[in-house]
């Protein structure tokens, strides 16, 4: 469509509107005019909660939010090689369009200024799609169909074709074992846990692809509406502490930092834009497709936000804004105290597979966080160090923890009960939420689920367990000395 060109400013869109939109008048009521152009252009949508707008202004408004997010938070710089996680849905579809627009604008700027300056660069752009067909056990033909559709969307209509990477969720395992993926998901009884685990695995796959092909930023299509739902779902899962980590513009706890340029755009407007601008999307079934709204906490939260929207069109903004007041983590800031440190950390991360934060001395440095090996959310140190389960294991155990006990978490086939205390302590290297919904009971199902997790997650868990135990042993020694002192006083 002509009016999708990058130059559609609010002053010029009136004429474009007239040229490209078949002016069949909206039925029924009298015509309403666009509040932005003020040139008597007929409004076609209601955006920004209550403003009637023409299609050009809707496009301009969304693009401006997208660009503002990118510029204000340096989400994409000219030297970046950007990978867009594309789901086929409207949000990532709009992100694809906008990144193309910005890129082609930058490219033409570069071409124009070639004579004057030579150092100008344009960011690279690639697209990745993670096929999750295995989860739904659909036929391989259907899975292929989805991939074909994605290819046709990404590879047409663009002046310069981006690289399209197609990955599958089971790629998270070294040897692409769809059997293992199914077994892992089936071992998780809780539907919310299962959905969340898929999301965590998807991120692992996205990171793998990004790293392998030298990308420097990963763009997700998470928008305001989704963030609002996520905030409420996370609250209901008891993730109040870690919640701010996932909803910031920038999240560099991953080897390839994740950015959310659609953070200020709402689903309603993205869907409208896709429809009126003829942006092709594809609907792909997932676990919650056609499911009852109470199939999972995520689904419930999303339905809840949607109902609230009916009552007050600004609710999703308010919820997202409330959550934005929560304190983010160090990895959410683009300006690190020292860029050198940040670079060094990134190198460390790359060297140790997908181990987001190295925590040799936990709880010591203010900057680094200890992350849950499964969901990568920062662990609440209060939980982590003083949880009841730890106290139980310490009080009843009293004895030294030998290195061989640690084999427990390495997946050795020794009996379970002899490790009860270690297993309790081991559980606490995971966040409370994962413990409950993904690894609910270490004595029974949890073991099975744990064994089936991707190697990278288990390696992280093991490492964290070792670190934690050496730290705990240290703490016990301190405690013993203190207690001796107290006794001698009485």
């Amino acid at each position, binding site marked *: 469509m002509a009016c999708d060109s990058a130059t559609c400013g609010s002053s010029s869109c009136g004429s474009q509107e007239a040229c490209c939109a078949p002016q069949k008048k909206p039925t029924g009521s009298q015509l309403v005019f666009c509040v932005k152009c003020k040139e008597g252009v007929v409004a076609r949508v209601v955006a920004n909660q209550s403003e009637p707008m023409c299609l050009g202004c809707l496009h301009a408004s969304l693009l401006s939010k997208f660009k503002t997010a990118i510029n204000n938070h340096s989400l994409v710089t000219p030297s970046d090689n950007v990978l867009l996680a594309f789901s086929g849905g409207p949000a990532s579809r709009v992100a694809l369009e906008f990144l193309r627009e910005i890129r082609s604008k930058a490219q033409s700027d570069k071409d124009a200024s070639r004579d004057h300056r030579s150092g100008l660069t344009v960011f690279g752009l690639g697209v990745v799609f993670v096929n999750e067909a295995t989860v739904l056990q659909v036929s391989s033909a259907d899975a292929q169909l989805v991939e074909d559709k994605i290819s046709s969307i990404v590879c047409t209509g663009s002046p310069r074709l981006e690289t399209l990477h197609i990955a599958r969720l089971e790629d998270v395992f070294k040897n692409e074992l769809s059997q293992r993926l199914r077994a892992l998901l089936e071992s998780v009884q*809780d539907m919310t846990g299962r959905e969340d685990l898929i999301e965590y695995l998807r991120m692992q796959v996205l990171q793998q692809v990004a790293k392998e092909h030298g990308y420097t930023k990963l763009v997700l299509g998470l928008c305001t509406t989704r963030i609002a739902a996520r905030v409420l779902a996370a609250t209901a899962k008891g993730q109040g*502490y870690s919640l701010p980590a996932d909803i910031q513009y920038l999240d560099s706890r991953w080897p390839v930092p994740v950015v959310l340029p659609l953070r200020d755009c709402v689903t309603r407007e993205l869907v409208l834009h896709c429809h009126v601008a003829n942006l092709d999307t594809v609907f792909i079934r997932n676990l919650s497709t056609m499911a009852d709204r109470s199939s999972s906490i995520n689904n419930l939260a999303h339905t809840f936000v949607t109902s609230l929207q009916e009552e007050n069109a600004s609710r999703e903004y308010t919820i997202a804004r409330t959550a934005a007041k929560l304190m983010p983590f160090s990895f959410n800031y683009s300006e690190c105290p020292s860029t050198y440190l940040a670079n060094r950390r990134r190198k460390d991360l790359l060297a140790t597979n997908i181990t987001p934060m190295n925590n040799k001395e936990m709880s010591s440095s203010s900057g680094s966080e200890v992350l849950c090996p499964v969901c990568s959310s920062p662990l609440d140190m209060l939980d982590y160090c003083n949880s009841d389960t730890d106290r139980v294991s310490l009080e009843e155990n009293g004895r030294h923890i030998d290195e061989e006990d640690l084999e427990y978490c390495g997946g050795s086939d020794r009996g379970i009960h002899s490790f009860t205390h270690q297993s309790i302590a081991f559980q606490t290297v995971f966040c409370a939420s994962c413990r409950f919904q993904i690894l609910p009971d270490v004595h029974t199902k949890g073991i099975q689920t744990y064994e089936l997790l991707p190697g990278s997650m288990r390696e992280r868990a093991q490492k964290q367990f070792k670190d934690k135990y050496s730290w705990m042993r240290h703490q016990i020694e301190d405690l013993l000395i203190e207690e001796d002192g107290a006794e001698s006083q009485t």
Partner: protein
Amino acid sequence: MGRQMCELCKDRRAALIRPRNRQQLCQQCFFVAFENEIHKTIVDNRLFKPGERVAIAASGGKDSTVLAHVLTELNRRHNYGLDLFLLSIDEGITGYRDDSLETVKRNEIQYGIPLEVLSYKALYGWSMDEIVREIGRKNNCTFCGVFRRQALDRGAAKVKADKMATGHNADDIAETVLLNIIRGDIARLSRCTAIITGEEGALPRCKPFNLGNLDCLFTYAYYKKLDYFSTECTYSPNAYRGYAREFIKDLESIRPRAILDIIKSGESFRFALTTKMPEQGTCEKCGYISSQKWCKACVLLDGLNRGLPRLGIGRTRGKSSSATGIQTDNSCSDKQTSIRNDKRILKPSLDF
């Protein structure tokens, strides 16, 4: 499957399993454990000082009944030296409050502590039934919430209490956490899970029930055969409060612990230091704490008394009409008000 023995006394058969730690206990040990936990909460957090006059906010419901029972018991057992009394608010809702007040009156006799009842009618000149007659059933929750919050404080001050203890249950607190997120009330969100509130200026309030023992309230009331009253308010809640309740109910049905997890989340929220909290001042009209010129109750009352009852409730949705420029009846009533240009009073924030 044979019944287990109580894990604590190892003498009697276990009668119940504590949801929190799956501990199997007999009735007696459960009572002791539960009461000791509340005692610990009180001692650890220094909720009371000897000699204090403490109002127990009594609604006649399960939670305040358990609170009244346990506090009277602990006061006697551990010599807190508190002057306890029951404080009830009569909103004036026929068929709802009449019955629960009867329960509170029985509690007065059962626990041997005095009861003070204060009515909306006496405090504000309006009963809830009268307010509903005036404004309809749509926004009455706002009035009731705002008035009740103040009524307890005013009532407690009137009978010279030093402190107030409230028996918030898990559902209430979870609902409050959600509502504060939904309407962006950072100030309330950051303090709604606190165990003691209002220490500066207002009458201090404390919640002796905390995360650890909330799950046992129902079990305790059941086994103690406590006399409580349970019914829903006869007026329908605000739309978004209704959605929030439905959400909590749905959550509970797929994951019972979600309610405690919401509270846990509320407790672990840490707000960025740059977040501005509204300054606490006092209402120019009644002297109650308020971050605005007039407190919410005075704004609402003013509207009621002047025949503009929707003043201060905030704009209603007006989805299609605001889009097409048609004014809602609400925006008209805003225009007629004499409190001109004071956006702060008219801002659409709702009080809990």
